[in-house]
């Protein structure tokens, strides 16, 4: 009997998971379908860009600076063994533009802006604001979800680019200003080695995908949250956990597609 109930419980969880993925996919398509209104009233997106993008600037800049400084320090220690200290700029830039910029910015975005979106929409649901909007014949997907979705999709690549730029500056501060790596070779090797299409554009594509996934997860969790304090807190936690795992898994898949053999 114990085996049967265990199998039943596992089956129930799998069915639930598949069901939720289906509902989330439907939610995503509805968001795209009702996005037209958001673009015709762009001020709604601008308002959300402020709360998701601009309000995330500080955490992105500070984290980017420190990650770049650590990269500069660790990179120098490693490259010194092979007498290639002059390649520090290349290492820092490629590490940030290809990987750390998009991934770290997306992880920070999920915990700062994603959790906030989930909590806000979850609380709107708990306080019947979403029901009120529906009763006023205003589609909440078009009015609440779509502007936040596009704000997330637009702000994520910009935040990742900023993370990488500040990170490179952090690497410069440690490598060139503090340790004394030659400034000319730091910048010139970076300029020669970093390819716009292969490196920068692939990084932008990654951050665009991460932005889409994190924002959809955050909005869906908020919209689907049970309208209780416990429900909203659980949904907020799920947003951060699911988004983080999705970012790391997708990063592997995208890296394998983009850079295999490059």
């Amino acid at each position: 009997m114990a085996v049967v109930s265990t199998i039943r419980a596992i089956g129930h969880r799998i069915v639930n998971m598949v069901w939720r993925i289906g509902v989330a996919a439907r939610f995503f398509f509805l968001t795209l379908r009702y996005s037209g209104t958001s673009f015709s009233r762009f001020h709604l997106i601008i308002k959300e860009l402020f709360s998701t993008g601009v309000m995330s600037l500080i955490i992105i800049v500070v984290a980017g600076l420190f990650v770049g400084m650590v990269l500069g320090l660790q990179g120098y220690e490693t490259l010194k063994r092979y007498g290639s200290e002059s390649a520090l700029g290349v290492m820092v830039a490629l590490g940030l533009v290809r990987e750390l910029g998009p991934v770290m910015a997306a992880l920070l975005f999920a915990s700062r802006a994603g959790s906030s979106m989930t909590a806000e929409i979850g609380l709107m649901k708990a306080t019947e604001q979403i029901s009120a909007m529906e009763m006023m014949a205003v589609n909440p997907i078009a009015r609440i979800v779509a502007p936040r979705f596009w704000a997330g999709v637009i702000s994520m690549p910009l935040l990742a680019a900023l993370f990488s730029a500040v990170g490179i500056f952090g690497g410069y501060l440690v490598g060139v200003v503090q340790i004394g790596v030659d400034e000319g070779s730091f910048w010139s090797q970076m300029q020669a080695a970093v390819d716009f299409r292969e490196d920068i554009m692939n990084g932008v594509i990654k951050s665009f995908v991460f932005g889409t996934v994190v924002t959809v997860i955050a909005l869906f969790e908020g919209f689907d949250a049970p309208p209780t304090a416990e429900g909203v807190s659980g949904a907020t936690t799920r947003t951060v956990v699911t988004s983080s795992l999705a970012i790391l898994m997708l990063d592997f898949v995208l890296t394998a597609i983009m850079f295999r053999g490059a």
Partner: protein
Amino acid sequence: MTFPKGKLIAIMGLSGCGKTTLLRHIGGALKPTKGYVKMDGQIMHELDQDGLYAMRRKMGMLFQFGALFTDMSVYDNVAFQMREHTDLPEDLIHNLVMMKLHAVGLRGAQQMMPSELSGGMARRVALARTMALDPMLVMYDEPFAGLDPISMTVIGDLIRSMNDVLGATSIIVTHDIQESLKIVDYVYFMANGVIVAEGTPDELRASETDFVRQFIHGEMDGPVPFHYPGVDYRQALNLRA
């Protein structure tokens, strides 16, 4: 159940008897498993989304705790539907919002945020927002819940006067007997999802029906038992018979 035009009708009953569910059916938020809701010649659950939204533009609903949009000021809350559903110029919207807020006595609170309002004020702002587009049907979900006696009288009077001024039909879901009997034209009593009594306030005050008497006089025991069904008390205390 019928709700004639221009009348103010109360649906009363114990918590959990299906009053709010009924409002959600009328608003088309739920699909009935049996029966139907017909409004203005249309059966609500047969409408597609566009039809449903078109019908909802003729309705207003006041939620239990107001459900004001917390990221918008009082002014923007009242202007919300006007901006969403009309192409009115902003100066005309301004005048309309002022008129609605004046009607609920909160013209001076236009720049306040919902978090700065008391429960009674929030309910009055929500009432102004509900009336923004002069709906033909207004639904009130527990409009008196959690209000002090003065706010309760104010809200009650506003509901009655707005109904009369607009010529709308109003449905109040409540279990506040005294306040609602003062203002409504007709009452339906519900229990376990069905109508158990109905009539005008005077008829119900004079009613000899056990349920109605217990409800109106707030008696502790009667057709609605004080104790929730459970095991025998002695058994619950582990006592021998």
